[in-house]
């Protein structure tokens, strides 16, 4: 199984969590890492290239910091342009069918804020329903989320362990039975 991780962070160099996750992924050369803001600093996405990357992998992980309960804007643009009608959905749009789609999200807010009584009110599962339904429409198997909440309070030792857990998440056996 070939795995593609699309990392979308507008400021990856200054990021602690997303950069550490990426560095841990880089120790495993079977994982393809694609950093979206580095590939398209001017926001002009090469749709054919992105589609061919997706076609040549079986599992796609979208890794990003949670911005306004959603993805950074370039990843939204990637969805809008790359997941085209007749390719990813609609008539003849079956190119992603049978692949797996996972989300790896870091959040500023602590875990207990993402519940009915917390200040963010909604759970991560609820807030990511737009991406879950995107997965439904493009025919991918939606994986359980990988989330690290409260990133300001994660000490180095915890982050180190979390990055290893992240690699295990990315490389876990296929959820789709052969």
């Amino acid at each position, binding site marked *: 199984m070939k795995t593609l991780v699309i990392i979308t962070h507008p400021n990856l160099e200054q990021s602690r969590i997303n950069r550490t996750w990426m560095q841990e992924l880089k120790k495993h050369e079977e994982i393809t890492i694609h950093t979206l803001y580095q590939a398209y600093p001017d926001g002009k996405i090469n749709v054919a290239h992105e589609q061919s990357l997706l076609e040549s992998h079986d599992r796609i992980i979208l890794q990003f910091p949670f911005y306004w309960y959603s993805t950074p804007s*370039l990843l939204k643009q990637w969805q809008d342009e790359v997941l085209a009608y007749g390719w990813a959905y609609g008539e003849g749009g079956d190119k992603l069918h049978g692949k797996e789609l996972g989300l790896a999200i870091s959040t500023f807010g602590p875990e207990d804020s993402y519940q009915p009584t917390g200040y963010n009110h909604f759970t991560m599962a609820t807030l990511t329903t737009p991406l879950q339904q995107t997965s*439904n429409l493009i025919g991918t198997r939606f994986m359980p989320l990988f989330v690290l909440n409260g990133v300001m309070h994660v000490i180095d030792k915890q982050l180190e362990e979390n990055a290893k857990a992240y690699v295990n998440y990315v490389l876990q056996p296929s959820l789709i039975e052969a």
Partner: protein
Amino acid sequence: MKTLVIVAHPNLEQSKVNRTWMNRLQQEENVTVHNLYAHYPTFEIDVEKEQQLLLEHDRIVLQFPFYWYSSPALLKQWQDLVLTYGWAYGSEGTKLRGKDFMLAISTGGPEKAYQAGGYNHFSMSELTKPFQATANLTGMRFLPTFTKHGVRLLMNEQVRESAEELVLHLKNNY
């Protein structure tokens, strides 16, 4: 009460519903229509200008076609850049508190698709939770969403009617 309608459609010239809505709203007094893609074709948003616009209005409406169960990319960029820490949220970020916040959305999928058992599985209320949470965090009151489903199948007369419905929805007291 002054209302700001931020229109975010990457191809407004070819849009029927969103363009009709925008043109109709421009005829209303006390409604400012702000065409986001026309202002920022290269995504370089003037944050100060956008914040100033928000400050000058009491009800903020985001109008857009539903793309992947969310807003088009430029409106996401607008959220990420304009709603800054210390201005829109955080202990000092109180500038939007008490304002009204509303969504006006067009969808290609029919109404019956947006429910459990329908092909979109989730309701509009569920899919717009990220916006509701944004309103919560910035201290704005999240008003009922205006949605027009199945827009590709609308006749011209129905499009015009939907624009009148939107005006009423937007001017309503909540």
